[in-house]
């Protein structure tokens, strides 16, 4: 009883904090960072469906993210309304996700990763080289944010609430997904694909549907992204963006709901803070990757807990030896 109540109370407090954030955080800069964290958390949650629950590591999600963004941006540029552009973008991203899934699910494991990487690079190639369609390196400007129910989202705070609404819906969808029988069967295909097959489950179909679900939310995140930046460029589709998304999922801890959200927060804050002091964000990203893989392969949240325990045990047995481990965990 207590565990569930603590959990519910924690969720209620978290939602309350998020709802009142603009009251106790002053400054457009910080509110914008909060919006960024939420939109990237949607992307990380979507990728986590495949990486964490499906055991399928995709390095092509920036491609899907960019497809949604570009579709909407180009339609808006050609005079379509926001509703039409967004619906079309989500439709296109679902079709693209289906194509990605049909090709990539020819393989699992490392083959899956390589194929998604190549597919993501195709999207980048179109965005960068097919200048007649995508304006190449110049990118596409998005003129203005939508006005749902007549509320203008131009300034930071209303946009924050719009992002928050989408973010909460995404989290709720992920919760339902994880607890549903379908979520359980997806985890089954991750752990024991052959047994699931023998039990009569269509492993391929389960993975395919999971890919579509992941692709849909990636598209939603892509739409939030272009409205946030009011601009989209080939950089969005680059391999580095896919890698950043993967870093969010893995740094927080895969196959948890909280992990990708924490990971998105860490990466966005790091990126903003580090690039304010240091122009070498790419190197920092690479070094963080290497350090996490070498010292905390299971992710920051579980990894810190493990290293903390280790340090505590070491402290109780041999105080001097515990110092380096303790530093690392903090």
């Amino acid at each position, binding site marked *: 009883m207590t565990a569930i109540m603590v959990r519910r109370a924690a969720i209620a407090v978290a939602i309350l904090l998020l709802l009142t954030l603009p009251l106790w955080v002053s400054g457009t800069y910080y509110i914008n960072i909060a919006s960024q964290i939420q939109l990237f958390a949607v992307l990380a949650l979507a990728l986590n469906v495949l990486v964490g629950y499906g055991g399928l*590591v995709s*390095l092509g999600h920036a491609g899907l993210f960019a497809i949604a963004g570009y579709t909407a941006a180009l339609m808006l540029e050609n005079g379509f309304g926001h509703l039409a552009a967004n619906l079309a973008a989500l439709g296109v991203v679902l079709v693209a996700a289906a194509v990605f899934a049909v*090709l990539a699910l*020819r*393989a699992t*494991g*490392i*083959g899956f*990763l*390589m*194929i998604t*990487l*190549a*597919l993501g*690079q*195709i999207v980048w*190639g*179109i965005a*960068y*080289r*097919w*200048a*007649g*369609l995508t304006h190449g390196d110049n990118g596409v400007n998005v003129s203005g944010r939508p006005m749902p129910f007549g509320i203008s989202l131009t300034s930071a705070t209303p946009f924050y609430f719009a992002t928050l609404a989408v973010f909460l819906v995404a989290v709720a969808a992920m919760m339902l997904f994880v607890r549903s029988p379908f979520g359980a069967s997806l985890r089954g295909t991750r752990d024991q694909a052959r047994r699931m097959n023998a039990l009569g489950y269509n492993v391929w179909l389960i993975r395919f549907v999971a890919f579509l679900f992941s692709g849909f939310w990636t598209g939603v995140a892509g739409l939030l992204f272009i409205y946030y930046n009011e601009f989209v460029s080939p950089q969005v589709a*680059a*391999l*580095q963006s896919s*890698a950043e998304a*993967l870093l969010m999922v*893995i740094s927080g801890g895969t196959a948890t709901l909280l992990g990708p959200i924490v990971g998105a927060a860490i990466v966005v804050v790091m990126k903003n803070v580090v690039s304010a002091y240091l122009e*070498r964000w*790419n*190197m920092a*990203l*690479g*070094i*963080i*990757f*290497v350090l*996490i*893989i*070498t010292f905390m*392969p299971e992710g920051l949240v579980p990894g810190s807990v493990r290293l903390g325990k280790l340090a505590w045990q070491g402290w109780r047995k041999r105080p001097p030896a515990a110092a380096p481990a303790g530093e690392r965990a903090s």
Partner: protein
Amino acid sequence: MSQYLTLAVNSISYGGLLFLLSAGFSLIFGLMRIPNLMHGSFFMLGAYLGASILEKGLGLGGTFHPHLQMLGVTLFDFTVSLPTIVVLAPHPNFFVAALIGGAVVACIGALIERFLLRRLAGQELPQVLLTLGLSFVVADICLMVWTGDPVQPATPSQFAGAVQFTGLFFPIYRLVVVMVAVVIAIALWLLIDWTRLGAMIRAGVDDAPIARMIGIKVSQLFTLIFALGAGLAAFGGVMGSPILSVYPGLDAEMLPVALIVVILGGTGSLLGALVGSFIIGFLYNYGQALFPDLAYVILFLPMVVVLVLRPQGLFGKVVP
């Protein structure tokens, strides 16, 4: 018509370059099962190193200026001058530069395999992330050292110019690249299929524990293969630099190409890498001439077709 023949020569030489790039990738991926996402970085690093060696030669020593400022306080700031020992005069022979570039990157590859990848043996996802992270670090170091401006070494003077054949001009350097690629392909085939070392490598790949039991040092062999693959990529980078020029982002451009060559040809198959390289070489050059907007996309079409019809690749074996 003549335009298409010239394109064909360009395609074959580009295919030769791709073979140098993807043979190492195929060996590392096929034999060691390591998805090395740093392969494009090795290519780019080799190309940059080769360009610098060609321009400035190779010397040890020089003037250093260590300087560290933290929170507005200068911690140290002084100049050290060491006498420079010239190992190689500026403008050395092109192949010497290519071999040195390849050797340096091979050493870097060996260190990475020995100290980082070895710890992750058999864990593919961490290997992917580690090599991806390192590729970002390498890209940023290259940007720091060589800045963002493209570097294009001159075509080596002894191979400058073109030969005339049936009224068409073929650049000599491109023909040299093809010849080098063919020589290396034959050497690799002899090494893997016909030497004791090759037999040991194949044994280590097929069944590492048994190979270890009969006294084969499998770990050392794997370090050797990784270094060889990295060195080949870097050598290819130097060979390709007069044609492609070297610029930031070359790594991310070459990695997917190596990937499609290997998916197309079948992992671990040298013949597959060779055939795949030439197919992609032709597609890239003709695509660029006929549909410039979509050249990069056309590259990926054969991969899609092969994945649908023959997932193990043209010359790949079905892994049970």
